């Protein structure tokens, strides 16, 4: 004897405003991170410091190095917030049980992702503005307006594959080990991709190995704008980045929809 009841089912179809959720989720997340100096200061400062040091003060070749390293440190800079806000952020919230609460709440999963992407874009923009400013003022970096804009767009959208990688890391790693693990991936991957020193400074076998690393391809793509890349086709770099994105989105979706996770 099932008593289905019309008054209960009546308003099951009412939906909240998705845009409003996206907006509030992104706002809350961003405000929260700006209030956490332990995240925001190193994320903004490291690329700026390294660039000032290697690209300007101890520049080996004042004609090209400030431009070259401004581009590679911008890549380094935008990868950081993507990996950390997703990777470490999700792992910690999972550890606290907070992620579980969000998961059983009617928050659309897309809101969680969109808000963190928005957050990554905001941090990326701040890093790009800082590096461009330092490059132009102290490094005598001179580019056409179209080059500045193209570079900024490559950096901002280029963070997306790393958002996907971060998301997967965040869903698989434990809260306690996530910060160390993400650093262990971030820093060596940055170095081996030629973000700290130009890639042709590295021995031949390391240059070969860099082909496997997504930051290398993002950097080559950006360096093409100033004709400083190694000369491989654009389509290669974009394909590798797209492949990484698809692979890690797939892994993240798999991890997220896996039931019975403990």
């Amino acid at each position, binding site marked *: 004897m*099932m*008593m*289905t*009841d019309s*008054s*209960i*089912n009546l*308003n*099951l*179809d*009412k*939906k*909240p*405003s998705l845009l*409003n*959720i996206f907006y*509030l*989720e992104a706002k*809350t997340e961003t*405000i*929260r*991170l700006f*209030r*956490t100096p332990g995240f925001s200061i190193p994320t903004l400062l490291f690329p700026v410091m390294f660039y000032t040091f290697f690209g300007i003060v101890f520049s080996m070749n004042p004609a090209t190095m400030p431009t070259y390293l401004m581009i590679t440190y911008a890549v380094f800079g935008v990868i950081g917030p993507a990996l950390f806000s997703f990777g470490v952020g999700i792992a910690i*919230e999972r*550890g*606290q*049980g*907070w992620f*579980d*609460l969000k*998961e*059983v*709440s*009617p*928050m*659309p999963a897309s809101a969680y992702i969109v808000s963190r992407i928005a957050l990554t874009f905001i941090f990326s923009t701040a890093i790009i503005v800082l590096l461009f400013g330092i490059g132009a003022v102290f490094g005598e970096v001179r580019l056409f307006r179209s080059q500045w804009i193209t570079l900024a767009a490559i950096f901002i959208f280029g963070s997306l594959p790393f958002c996907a990688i971060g998301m997967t890391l965040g869903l698989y790693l434990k809260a306690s080990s996530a910060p160390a693990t993400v650093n262990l991936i971030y820093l060596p991957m940055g170095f081996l991709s030629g973000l700290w020193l130009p890639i042709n400074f590295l021995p031949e076998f390391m240059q070969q190995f860099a082909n496997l690393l997504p930051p290398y391809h993002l950097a080559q793509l950006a360096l093409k704008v100033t004709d400083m890349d190694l000369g491989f086709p654009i389509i290669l770099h974009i394909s590798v980045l797209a492949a990484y994105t698809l692979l890690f989105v797939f892994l993240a979706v798999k991890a997220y929809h896996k*039931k*019975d996770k403990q």
Partner: protein
Amino acid sequence: MTQKTQTVATISNVGKSFGDKQVLSGINMQLHQSEILSVLGPNGAGKTTLINTMLGRLSLDAGEISLFGHPPGSMLVKRQTGAMLQVAGLPDMSTVKEHIELFQSYYAEPMSYQQVMDYSGLKDIENQYSKTLSGGQKQRLLFALAICGNPKLLFLDEPTVGMDITARKSLWKAIENLKANGTSILLTTHYLEEADRLSDRIVMLSRGKVVREGTPAQIKSQINTKKIRFQSKVNISELVAIKHVEKATQLHAENNYFELESTNAEEALKELFKHEIAISDLTIVGAALEDAFEIINNQDSTSSASE
């Protein structure tokens, strides 16, 4: 009319195991509109697993769960549901108000902010970062997040853990008000007093099975064992013979302390005094929930052994 017995949740023959371990088996229960159903049980009885299956976080090995006629975990169901889970920490650097306003946005017709404040008693600390909240205040915030969407179905997993008695009582009041407004509530708790005060019905779980189900009065009549302790020079055989005494034990062989167990302590005491046994240092303690489970489990194992 059948208005009063509208079914919000139906759990039919649900079974779940983790590897070799059977955590839930053959669970049948229903939750009706405007009803508070408490799920009680010792640690490891399967309470949290049951809630997780109802929230759609765990798959089922057997049986079926239907909430508002839909499978658990679907967005339609989530929009009618609020949940207070055992959460170790909240993101530190958001204020109480920011947390609540964000969760309100997930629902089509959320509760008004003022009303959430009234229910949760968080008004004085609405601008504090969640980092600075005490354990009890965090619990109140999690409660606020669970109710802020005006849910028709509310899951409360150990809601009053870490709360002082004042906070606990005001939370009870809020739960009763929500129920009066038509919310159906599924509660798990370790506190028998809490379940007793709030529940319309109680389901007792033990080792993944429903061992008792009924109103608090019905359950209590089965587990309301009190322990009567005193010092006396009496012979234990005389105590065993007293009416309403189910069990008598001598606590220590050397000194003369005795413990009687009775489900009707008042009558047992009357009988004890009638026998004119000289006693001193009398104390009476109620059975804790854990004791009650021991009693029920013992009853069950004896009855199944005799089958």
